[in-house]
């Protein structure tokens, strides 16, 4: 087994243990396990960031055009958003949903570690890095918003049905989750807008045309952007709250997963990171 694989497994292992602890904490088996889980997630995140950097340097291209790279980058963006947010806001209990979701993404990705990226990205450079980085950041932040929405719906159901158990006790209040959700969607909308603008500028600079505009991934991302815009409008202009808007955010996660991965299973895309040719070269 090569070193890269072992180190990646180590990183994913940290996430797996963190998931176990975070879920146990949410269910009340290890009330103090959440802090350890977040620490382990951070350690795993740093290890996997190292792996991505190493792969990027080895391939001399952005480590984002392979299933492993893409899913790992997405999981890291989500973990980073959670780590950042939890330092400022009361987010106890949400780790029990965030970390297992990130671990699931990593497990789906690790099976593709030995597969090469698709065709090298036509453009490498600061513009491309900016476009990809903002897109992943938007996906990570929006996923966290959707997970807050899931927590909101769980808490709503607990309150409605008077299930006042450990999960009810450990998750934050509805209002906290509602704030978290709306702030995060706002940030995600901004990041996705910037990423799309950067993408358009990149296409212009390489003389690309309609094939990019009609690319299934671009279309799916545009739908996601519209959904985020609707959410932002519902909150900022109509001041909508409650379980209805939480459902919109959860639906948004479905759209995100479709735009991110599902679209590649239906139609070929110019954003070809899901290709699965065996690796040729690399570090």
């Amino acid at each position, binding site marked *: 087994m090569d070193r890269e694989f072992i180190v990646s497994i180590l990183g994913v292992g940290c996430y797996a243990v963190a998931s176990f602890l975070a879920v146990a904490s949410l269910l009340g088996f290890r*009330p103090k396990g959440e802090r350890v889980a977040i620490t382990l997630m951070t350690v795993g995140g740093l290890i996997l960031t190292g792996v991505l950097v190493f792969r990027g340097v080895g391939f001399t291209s952005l480590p984002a055009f392979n299933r492993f790279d893409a899913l790992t980058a997405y999981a890291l963006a989500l973990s980073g958003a959670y780590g950042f947010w939890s330092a400022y806001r009361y987010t106890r209990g949400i780790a029990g949903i965030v970390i297992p979701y990130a671990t699931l993404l990593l497990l789906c990705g690790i099976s593709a570690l030995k597969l090469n990226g698709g065709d090298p990205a036509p453009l490498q450079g600061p513009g491309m890095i900016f476009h990809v980085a903002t897109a992943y950041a938007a996906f990570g932040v929006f996923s966290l918003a959707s997970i807050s929405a899931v927590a909101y719906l769980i808490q709503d159901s607990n309150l*409605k049905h008077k299930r006042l158990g450990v999960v009810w006790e450990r998750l934050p209040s509805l209002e906290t989750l509602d704030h978290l959700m709306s702030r995060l969607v706002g940030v995600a909308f901004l990041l996705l807008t910037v990423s799309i603008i950067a993408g358009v500028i990149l296409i212009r600079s390489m003389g690309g045309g309609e094939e990019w505009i009609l690319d299934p991934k671009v279309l799916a991302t545009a739908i996601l952007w519209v959904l985020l815009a609707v959410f932002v409008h519902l909150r900022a202009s109509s001041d909508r709250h409650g379980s209805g*808007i939480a459902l919109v955010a959860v639906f948004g996660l479905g759209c995100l997963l479709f735009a991110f991965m599902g679209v590649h299973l239906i139609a070929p895309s110019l954003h070809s990171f899901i290709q699965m040719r065996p690796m040729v070269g690399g570090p």
Partner: protein
Amino acid sequence: MKLAVIGISYHTAPVDVREKASVRSGEVPALLQRIKAQFPSSELVLVSTCNRTELYTVGIDVNADKHRLFQILLKGDEHFRADELEQHFYVKSDLEAAEHMLAVASSLDAMVVGESEILGQVKQALGIADEAGMVGKVLHTLFQRAFKTAKRIHSETDICRGRVSVSSLAVEFAEKVFDDLSTKTVMLVGAGETAELALKSLMDRGARDVLVLNRSHGRGQDLAERCGGRAIQFDLLDDYLARADIVISSTSAPHLVIHAAAVQRAIDIRRGKPMLMVDIAVPRDIDPAAAHIKNVYVYSIDDLQLIAAENIAKRREAVEQAWSIVRQGVAEISEHFEGGGLREVLQKFDEMGREVCETALKRTLAKERLAGLPEPSREEIRELARKIVGKMLAEPREALKRAAKNGELEGYVRVVNDLFGFDRKDLKK
């Protein structure tokens, strides 16, 4: 350690007796000074709450001086006969007193087992006594152990989990729906006693904006003035409903007061912002159909009582576990106060045994007629001497350990020191 507690609590005395012994926190230092004046070498802490007044002492023979202490605690009230005082007050000493302190701080002795206020009150009592210079090494250690034990019990058992009163449950629900109660509006419909208690609990947690609606507007105004809120005409209820984040209803109306349609209108105006509705009235004030409206959380008195009963049952289950932690705490205290003395005296025993044995062996084996004795035989003699000394000291050692367990070590140590002359030897050294 001469630790003792002398006290009166809801277990032993009705409120009219307890209130005579009750001491406001501002009066505690003066009372402690009065006791200290009579018992200058004592350590003192006075814990006074609505359910108990207890004086923790070190260095006072409470059994001999209890009547003096009763009088001081009752502030000179001489209406009670001696047998009445004996009946109302309890006296516990040494480890029994330590166990009582741990049980009190952990809320195992409280009227509502698991309520958390008592720990704060005990901490405050220690702080006041400490500031007045009444706390020495023994009481400081005891109280710190008590806080540690209480913390363990709170974190390791379910004794504090779940609220058990209607008012505290209302607060708990409010805190699970809203982030910051200070920005929320509480609407009180009807001015029942329980609703007022719930309002008070919410205000204690930061709620400031209060609307009071009562059929008797005058009574509503009185309550609104008391809680710094606004009194609203009762027939404007539906108009004001949308402004309320939390509604507590407790009218004595024989019919529904808040209809589902009105709640639906309110939630539409609120654009889905959650609304918590607590219905304490019997028969119910809030239309049960309102519970099916999205973002509205309705709790009736039955729901609250059911939850309270479940929480009480959970607490009861945790009581045994909590007591075992208290017993561990008491064992640690015993070890701390008496274990050190025990170790010291056992060490002295060992040293003495070794010294006696070695001296006797040295003298015996140095005799000329034993000079030719082979080394294995000499070793056997040494071994025999050690065994004899060991056997002789075994029973006293066990007696000392038993005394330590029973809290009688101090007396035993004095006798042992006297019999074996340990003190004199220490002085020589």
